C-alpha cells in the first residue's frame, strides 16, 4: 500500500432537503485495501458509496480520487465501477454481452474484447457461461456476472453495495471467501457497504462504522472489536456486557477502576480508547472473555459467584446468562463446548472469572 490515499473525502456533507444524510465526513482509503462501510439501515453508508460512484452530488466538501477532484465529473467518467445491490444484470442480453457492455466504446478489436470477456468470466468462476441468457441465472451467478462486468473495465476502485444480502447463508459464506480471494488477485481497492458486522470483520482490511451520517470509528477489524471507542460501536460489533464503573486513580499508564459486581481492577491506558475519563464510566466485557469455572477448576484471577439464569446451546458453543450480585442485568458468557464439560442448567450456582486485559473502559 502506497503513501498517499487513493480516495480522500474532506468535510463531505450531503443534504436531501431537510434531511442531513452525511455529516462532515473525513475519510482516506488507500490503494489496494479492502475497505468496508458498516452500519445500521439509514446510517448513510449507501449514500456515501453512491457519492463516491458519482450518483449523488456533494452538498459541501471535496472528494478526490487518485489525486483528481471529482466535483464535476459524472459517474460514467469516474475511475470507479459499482456492483449494485440488485446486481442490475441486463435481462435482454446474454452473459457475455452483459460483461462486454462497458467495452462498447473501447477501441480494441472484437476478438480482443471476446478474449477479455472470457478471461473475466474465468476470473469469477463462470467460464463457459458466455452464451447463457442473463435472466436465467441464479442469484450467486448474477453476482459473479456483475463482478466480471465491473472488473473487466479495470477500475481503480470497485464499489459493492450490500452484495451478499440477497444470498442465502451458505452462498454468502462462500462468496465472502471468493471476494477476498478476488480482491487479492486483482489487487485493486474494494469498498464494500454492509450492515452485517460479521461480513465486514471477515473480509476487510479496515472498517468505518457509521451511525446517523457520521463515522463512529474507523479501524482494522481487530482494533474495532477489542477496542471499540463507544458503547454504540461496541454494541454494533459483536455482543458486549456493560457494567457501571468508577475511575479511582490513574498513574503511569495504569488506571484503577471499581467495577460494579466485579470489584476493583487495574487496566492499562490502551484499554481506554477515548482516554481515561475521571469519575463515572462504563466497562465493557466481551462474552468470550468471561469464563465459567467448572467443578474442580481453580484460577489465580479474581472471581465472583453467581447463578445461571438462561442457557442457549448452539452446537459448538453454549451461551449463558449469569446473574451476579449487585448488577441488574445478567452477564452474557460464551463457553466452547468441550468433551467432559457439562452444559449447566438454569438455576445452578456457578463461579465466573475474567481476564482484566480484556476490559474496555468507555464513557458513561
Amino acid at each position, binding site marked *: 500500500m502506497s503513501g498517499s490515499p487513493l480516495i480522500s473525502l474532506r468535510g463531505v456533507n450531503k443534504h*436531501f*432537503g*431537510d434531511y442531513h444524510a452525511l455529516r462532515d465526513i473525513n475519510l482516506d482509503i488507500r490503494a489496494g485495501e479492502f475497505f468496508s462501510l458498516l452500519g445500521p439501515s439509514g446510517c448513510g453508508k449507501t449514500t456515501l458509496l453512491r457519492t463516491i460512484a458519482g450518483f449523488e452530488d456533494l452538498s459541501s466538501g471535496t472528494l478526490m480520487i487518485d489525486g483528481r477532484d471529482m466535483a464535476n465529473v459524472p459517474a460514467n467518467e469516474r475511475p470507479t465501477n459499482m456492483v449494485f445491490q440488485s446486481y442490475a444484470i441486463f435481462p435482454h442480453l446474454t452473459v457475455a454481452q452483459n460483461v462486454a457492455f462497458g467495452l462498447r466504446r473501447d477501441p480494441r478489436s472484437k476478438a480482443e474484447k471476446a478474449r477479455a470477456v472470457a478471461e473475466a468470466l474465468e476470473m469469477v468462476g463462470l467460464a463457459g457461461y458466455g452464451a447463457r441468457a442473463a435472466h436465467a441465472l441464479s442469484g450467486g451467478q448474477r453476482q459473479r456476472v456483475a463482478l466480471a462486468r465491473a472488473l473487466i473495465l479495470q477500475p481503480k476502485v470497485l464499489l459493492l453495495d450490500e452484495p451478499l444480502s440477497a444470498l442465502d447463508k451458505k452462498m454468502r459464506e462462500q462468496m465472502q471467501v471468493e471476494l477476498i480471494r478476488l480482491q487479492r488477485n486483482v489487487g485493486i481497492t474494494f469498498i464494500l457497504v454492509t450492515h452485517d458486522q460479521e461480513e465486514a470483520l471477515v473480509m476487510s482490511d479496515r472498517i468505518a462504522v457509521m451511525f446517523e451520517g457520521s463515522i463512529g470509528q474507523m479501524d482494522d477489524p481487530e482494533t474495532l472489536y477489542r477496542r471499540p471507542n463507544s458503547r454504540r460501536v461496541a454494541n454494533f460489533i459483536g455482543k458486549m456486557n456493560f457494567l457501571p464503573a468508577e475511575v479511582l486513580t490513574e498513574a503511569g499508564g495504569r488506571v484503577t477502576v471499581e467495577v460494579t459486581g466485579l470489584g476493583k481492577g487495574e487496566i492499562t491506558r490502551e484499554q481506554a480508547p477515548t482516554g481515561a475519563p475521571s469519575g463515572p464510566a462504563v466497562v465493557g466485557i466481551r462474552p468470550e472473555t468471561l469464563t465459567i469455572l467448572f467443578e474442580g477448576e481453580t484460577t489465580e484471577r479474581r472471581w465472583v459467584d453467581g447463578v445461571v439464569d438462561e442457557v442457549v446451546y448452539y452446537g459448538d458453543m453454549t451461551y449463558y446468562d449469569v446473574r451476579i450480585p449487585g448488577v441488574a442485568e445478567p452477564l452474557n458468557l460464551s463457553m466452547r463446548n468441550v468433551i467432559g464439560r457439562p452444559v449447566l442448567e438454569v438455576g445452578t450456582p456457578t463461579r465466573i472469572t475474567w481476564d482484566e486485559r480484556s476490559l474496555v473502559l468507555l464513557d458513561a
Partner: protein
Amino acid sequence: MAAGGFISDDGKRAFRALLPPFVYAVFLLAIPLATVVVVSFQMRGAATGEWLGGALPAPAATALRIMVLLYAVTLPFAFVLIARAGQIGRVIRFLLLALPLWVAALWLSWSYLATLGFGFGNYASVFTDPINIRGVLRDGSWLPGLLPRSLFVSITVTAATVILAYPIAYFISFRVAPENKSLWIFLITIPFWTSYLIRIFLWKVILGYSGVVNTALTGIGIIDEPLTFILYNVNAVIITLAHAYAPFAILPIYVALEKIDRSLKEASRDLGEDRFTTFLRVTLPLSVPGIVAAVLIVFIPTIGDYVTPELVGGSGGLLIANRIQSLFLQVNDPGLGSALSLVTMATVGIVALAFILSLRRWLKRL
C-alpha cells in the same frame, strides 16, 4: 424522501419527463374546457357591442377595457398572496382600500361582458326549459325531462352492468386457476376492442322486429307475434350499453378481489361463518373499492353516449347527449350546448360524489 417541498434530482427529471404530455393535455383539454365554460355564458344573438370608453378612440378604449378586466381578475390573487404573507393589519388595510375598487371593477367587467352577449341566460334556459328537467306532454304521452331520464338510464345501466359483472369477476378471481386468469381477462376484454358503432348496429339487428331474436323465437314457436318492446326504446339502450360496458365493470372488481388476502376467508370460516355469510361479512365489504370504481367507470361515460340512443332508442329513447349534439351540430347554439354540457357534468359529479360519500365507511381502508 421529499421533505416538505424538496425535489431530488430524480424528481426534477421526472418533472421534465411529464412535461410534454402534461402541456399537451393542458392545451387540448384544459384550455378547451375553459373555453367551453366561457362559451356557456355566451347567449346567441345577445351581443350589443358598446361599453365603457365608447367616446374614446379605439386603441384607448381597448386599453381601458383590458386594464379594467386585468385588475378585476388579478385582484383576488393579490389578496391571497398578501394573506399568505400573514400580517393581519396589512390584510385589513388592503381590504378597505381595494374592496370597493374591486367591486367596481367587477361590475364594470360584467357589464362589458354583457355587451358581448355574456350572461346567465343559457343557464336559465337549461333549468327552465321543460325538455331538460321537468318534462313535456307530447302527442298525448308524457316525456320525462332529458336530464332525469338520462340519469335514470345511466343508473339503471350501471346497476345492471355492475351486478351482472360481480359474479364473473368473483369467478375469475376465486375459481379460475392462476395460470388461466389472464386468459379469461383477455377474453373478457376482446368485445371492448371491436368497433363500438358496429356493436350498436348488431344490437339493432338482434332486437329488431324481424331481427334475430324475434325470428328465432317465432321460428321455434315460443311466441306468435314478434316482440316490440325490445327495440326503439329505452330498454334497447339499456341492453346495448350494458353489453358495451361490461368489461369496464368487471376489471376493477376483479382487481379489488385479487387484492383480498385469501386467508381472511379461511379465518372467517374457522370462526364459524358459512360460505354465504363469509361473503357478506368479509369478501363483499373488502371489494367495495372495486365496486365503486366499476360504478364510476360505467356511470360517467354512459351519460355522454348519444349514438346508442339515436340508433336503438327511437324517438322516445333520446337522451341528453343527443340534445347536446343537436345544439352543436344542427341548431348551432354552442352557448346553450356548453351550458347544458356543464350542467350535466355537474349533475353527474354530484351524483358520483354522493355515491362515494355514502360508501365511505368501506373505503376508509385506503
